[in-house]
């Protein structure tokens, strides 16, 4: 894609963080038009027609999610923007917030209009101090222009956007964990049902959407559903931000059409592997999804194609590993993350994440036995699908896939010489 949509800041010479520059570039035109002229249901229909799927990880159809909102409850409806971006290997949402915050605000205004929300929140992870500051400034600017607050764009409509900073927990990115945290509680994900669309934040109907998803809404309403659907596979189209990290020459965030071939991403856009190295494996969607061996990487990067290949697009956090990578050590590091981040609520996750890491430390330090391979696999298996949220699955999936894809390395590790701890 020669032209950037979501990362437009890369194509213009002006600083889009400043509202006047953003307006001069055509900004807020769409929100003004939609709120003045379009019925909320027509906005939802447009988003549905565009086949927009959530960019946070699960790929759930956004329009469908909106249509689940409980109606006629007499309670306020809330829109929460999930800016907790904490899946290892993912750094796309911050690019939007840091450089083009008004794009997100405009997307949120249109979405809030569609679902009948007056007060919307951006839940941003604590580490994104800069992004939070940029957003606060942008909101103040938009308020000064009359785009937020009472009588927005000269209508009788009121709309507010609030920034809420988290304190740095992965679990706050799970939508009901986020809701609990926003309410000032420990981020223990909620049991479902009820779903947030019925009983969300403060007990009110709530929609939680990812930053990139909400930014897409702006462009869909600006350029039309047909334009959006024309980019990549029709069942899950649109411009897509890919976060590439690891052993490539040019890691970074890339905006490309949904369905861009993985090999093109690595060898064309990212300049290929580091000198003298060979591709060994790729985690295509953030550290929680199953790993692919090099020979499995000839795939298109869209929701359905990656699933067909046995993994998931997830948050499109693409972690590229070359032949110097010790898979046991890599998995140990991943397991450490999920052990550290498990909220501790459900038994299998609370106890299993710790057990996985302890087992992997044994492998890494040469203390593991052949039986430990089976233990590792069965512990992970017991964590799949048995908990309130999917953090448990996120911790278990990489373990099972590493074992399945690189069994020889784990077997070899049982023969390693013991390393002093």
């Amino acid at each position, binding site marked *: 894609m020669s032209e950037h949509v979501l990362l437009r800041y890369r194509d213009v010479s002006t600083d889009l963080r400043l509202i006047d520059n953003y307006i001069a570039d055509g900004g807020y035109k769409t929100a003004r038009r939609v709120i003045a002229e379009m019925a909320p249901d027509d906005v939802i229909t447009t988003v549905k027609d565009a086949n927009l799927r959530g960019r946070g990880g699960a790929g759930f159809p956004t329009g469908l999610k909106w249509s689940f909102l409980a109606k006629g409850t007499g309670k306020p409806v809330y829109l929460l923007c999930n800016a907790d971006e904490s899946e290892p290997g993912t750094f796309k949402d911050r690019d939007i917030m840091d450089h083009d915050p008004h794009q997100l605000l405009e997307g949120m205004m249109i979405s809030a209009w569609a679902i009948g929300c007056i007060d919307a929140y951006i839940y941003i992870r604590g580490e994104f101090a800069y992004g939070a500051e940029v957003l606060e400034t942008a909101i103040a600017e938009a308020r000064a222009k009359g785009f937020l607050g009472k009588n927005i764009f000269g209508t009788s409509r009121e709309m507010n956007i609030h920034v809420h900073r988290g304190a740095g*927990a992965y679990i706050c990115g799970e939508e009901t964990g986020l809701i609990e945290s926003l309410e000032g509680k*420990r981020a*223990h994900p909620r*049991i479902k*049902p009820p779903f947030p669309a019925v009983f969300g934040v403060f007990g009110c109907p709530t929609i939680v959407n990812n930053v990139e998803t909400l930014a897409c809404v702006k462009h869909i309403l600006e350029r039309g559903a047909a334009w959006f659907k024309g980019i990549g596979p029709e069942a899950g189209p649109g411009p897509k931000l890919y976060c590439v990290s690891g052993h490539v020459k040019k890691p970074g965030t890339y905006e490309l059409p949904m369905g861009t071939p993985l090999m093109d991403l690595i060898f064309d856009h990212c300049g290929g592997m580091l000198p003298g190295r060979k591709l060994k494996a790729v985690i295509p969607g953030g550290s929680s999804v199953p790993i692919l061996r090099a020979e499995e990487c000839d795939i298109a990067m869209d929701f359905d194609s990656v699933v067909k290949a046995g993994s998931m697009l997830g948050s499109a956090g693409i972690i590229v590993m070359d032949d110097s990578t010790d898979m046991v050590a890599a998995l140990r590091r991943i397991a450490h993350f999920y*052990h*550290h*981040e*498990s*909220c*501790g*609520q*459900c*038994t*299998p*996750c*609370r*106890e*299993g*994440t*710790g*057990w996985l890491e*302890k087992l992997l430390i044994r492998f890494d330090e040469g203390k593991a036995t052949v039986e430990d391979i089976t*233990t590792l696999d069965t512990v992970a*298996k*017991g964590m799949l*699908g*048995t*908990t*309130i949220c999917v953090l448990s699955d996120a911790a278990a999936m990489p373990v099972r896939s590493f074992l399945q894809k690189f069994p020889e390395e784990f077997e070899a590790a049982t023969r390693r010489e013991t390393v002093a701890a």
Partner: protein
Amino acid sequence: MATVTINGKTVEVPDGTNLVLAAEMAGQEIPHYCYHPGLSVAGNCRMCLVDIKAMSAKQPNAMPKLQIGCNTIVQDGMVVESNNPRVQEARQGVLEFLLINHPIDCPICDQAGECKLQEYYMDYGRYHSRFALEEKVDKGKVIPVGPDIMLDQERCILCTRCVRFLEEYTGTCELGLTERGDHAELTLATGKQVDNPYSTNIVDICPVGALTSREFRFRARVWYLDSTPSICAGCASGCNIDVDSREDRIFRLKPRANAAVNGYWMCDEGRRTWHRNQGEHRLTASYLRSADEFVETDAADVMARAAASLRSRSRTAVLASAATSLEEGYLARCIAQRLGAGPCLIVSPSTSSIPDDDKLISTDRYPNRAGLLALGYEEQLSPPSGVDSAIALRADIVADDETAWGSFLESMTETLVLADAVGKTMAYADHLLAIGSHFEAAGSFVNRDDRIQVFVPSVAAPGHALAGWQTLADLLAVLGGPRYASTDEVFAALCLAIGLGAGRTHSSVTSEGTPLASWKSGSGVKVAGNSPRIGTGSPASL
């Protein structure tokens, strides 16, 4: 109503029932830790995972993932398997997870014998440990979190039953979770102690040995204890309890579920009422006054002499404590009628320094005021006039007001005292009969909501003391009245006498207690359901 099939057994259950309770109604067990019928659903232990084969008659599709029974509400036509290989594997996995960081210190744990970890391990676990002992997470042990509660963080399975109880029932929020993952631990809120009036309930609902009673710990192995259903006599609420005893000594009281009276709970004050039942202060023998001395004498002899003395007086008052059972109260009233139709008085104050709360605590510290009032007793805290003799029944009136009652009793030509403990009133007795406490006899109370509840003896009366009703029945017979051979006979007679119908026995009283109004002949009185103080509970597994 919804028809649901669990493990091939079909049962009809009320709408809104969850699968754990529905299974119970179908005679099936779905094991669980965090779920408690008296608390909100947390869904965190994952022990109650079940396989839903059909969601409902309308949507006969199976659920792809196992679902937790506690948060699944039955739908008509639902088909569930709670014991197939898939469920068993998941459950065994959960048990293994629960135990990897558990200290497994059962030999020194007070919960042993009534521990859900032990029980479910024996039922569903039984695997060899795959976890290295040295890799267990260390947490705090022997942490006093309140005057009666000790916390062991390593034994805790983080089910949050206690946290929810303290949030939802008492609203005091003394306990919470801190840290994350396998380092998560149950922690006392800064600057707080679990010292609310209902605190010890969290020991009962703790499914493991994390919260133990500082009073009970290391006192007895639970498998040596006999448990007897009873009623708390600590106040007018009439909470249902289990009395745990061994060799006629009581070790603890625990609440017994009754949705209509106390839900699943009882107060700490009530829990301590057994203390009065044991010790040097108990009266263990009967006495005669001879000159200025009490002479220990056989009860039958004391009674014969007391009867002879009373018969020669013109009018005898009955001065009863509101802790007197219905049976005792009725027999005493029969005796008074034969002795000049003397007044029958409730001499216990109806209020105390402890205020009513909106839960289970009544300011009336006596269990049967309503019952005695139904029997025709009158409340009077001052001495009656126009009598020459008195029977003090369980009432230490002199301790309440020495001046008034002391001079009154001095003016009596005969004072018979029936007491279960040493008291000031004894000093004024001509005849003194030792009787058992309500833990030591059968009987019935009527609580503040006019609900009749029955109890049976949990332990034997100490020494030569006899059951109160037995003593009074003997006295009535000696005075020429009818001879009652059992509490059921007395109960039938008293029910008939006060218009509660014929042929009533203790077994006619329902397990939730029977509202007096529902027995009033042809009253057509609409009987209220549950106590307004506890809302609706369900008599389900705890």
